[in-house]
């Protein structure tokens, strides 16, 4: 076995439109990462190193110290700091023991550059964030 289970990635909406062969290819790039309940997964303002999808467990998102939302299996986070090479926009704390699959910046960028379907989905996600911010 190498990387993460293909079935796990197929459940992630970001990768749902890829065929099995494409998912197989990207599965080899991901690495398993576990966080304990209460552990800070990413911290707002810190530089970003990896993009994560949640396989099991839940995590709370805080923006400016305020609780913003809860992430659940299938959700993903961490892509914005990797795209603009800026800092993390939110703090994420594991609400329970958390099993994630992570992709570092050095693997994430070539993946998005090569795969228009993933790139488009990320753009849609960014556009939603932008629209929500504009509409207050």
């Amino acid at each position, binding site marked *: *076995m*190498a*990387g993460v289970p293909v079935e796990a990635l197929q459940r992630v909406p970001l990768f749902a439109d890829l065929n099995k062969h494409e998912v197989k290819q990207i599965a080899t790039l991901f*690495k398993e990462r576990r966080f304990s309940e209460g552990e800070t997964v*990413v*911290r707002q303002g810190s*530089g*970003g*190193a990896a993009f994560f999808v949640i396989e099991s467990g839940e995590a709370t998102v805080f923006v400016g110290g305020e609780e913003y939302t809860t992430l659940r299996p299938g959700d993903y986070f961490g892509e914005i700091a990797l795209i603009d090479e800026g800092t993390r926009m939110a703090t994420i704390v594991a609400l329970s023991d958390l099993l994630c699959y992570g992709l570092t910046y050095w693997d994430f960028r070539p993946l998005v550059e090569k795969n228009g379907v993933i790139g488009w989905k990320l753009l849609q996600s960014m556009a939603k964030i932008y629209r929500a911010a504009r509409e207050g």
Partner: protein
Amino acid sequence: MKEVVRLEKARETALFGSKAVGLGQAMRDGLPVPPGVALSGSVVEAVAAGKDRVIKHVERAAQPLGGPLAVRSSAVDEDGAEASFAGQHLTLLNVPSSEELPSALSEIWWSANSDSAISYRQRVGLFTRPSVGVVVQSLLDPETAGVMFTQNPVTGADERVIEASWGLGEAVVAGQVIPDTYRVDRSGQVLERTPGLKKIAIRTASGGGTVEEQISPELAERLCLDDDQLGELNGLAGRCEQVYGSARDIEWAFADGTLYLLQCRAVTRAGP
């Protein structure tokens, strides 16, 4: 090229990192280093990626070491003169056996790819893909341990400065105790013995990892090294200088009455 080797065979910094190669050189020069195995950066990444074949190979290589194990990062692209990754990359003490080694290696790989490690890389202008080799060694259960500068790092004086405490040396390295301080000249004459306040000792825990043990007030203020041990440390300092040159920063431990060298590196800043 072999990427999993006994520590004494670790020669290529580009594969195994400076810590592994430094310890390998020390073993080749007959210095008292605990036995170990060096893993290249790409092997550590393959284990983190869950590659079964590599995992089995690493487990087999570490099996003769028994357990428990000390698993230390050895940054492959570390450049001691420009930037130090000390504190950025994880060291895991008391990994119970080679079976638990893969998850320990995964944790270490992620420590080199953590947000804080990457932020640090951005700050020092090293925003490149990290590669982290690993040194796996038999874990000592030391009575006393600490650090030693072969030359006074503050005044530049030609004397050994030794800091020591009870148990594992991490208590001294991480600043969790006020260690005993000793100064010894090259002839072995002890110039200063200042007891510290060593309220805790870091010991190995039965299920893996480490625990902080409370030290009795009487023992906390008692000197933990005698003159014979200071003489042995002075001898080790001399041998390290012969091999590597002057102004070394050494981590050491006394376990079952035997002195071991855990790390020897150049002092990054010496003298007034």
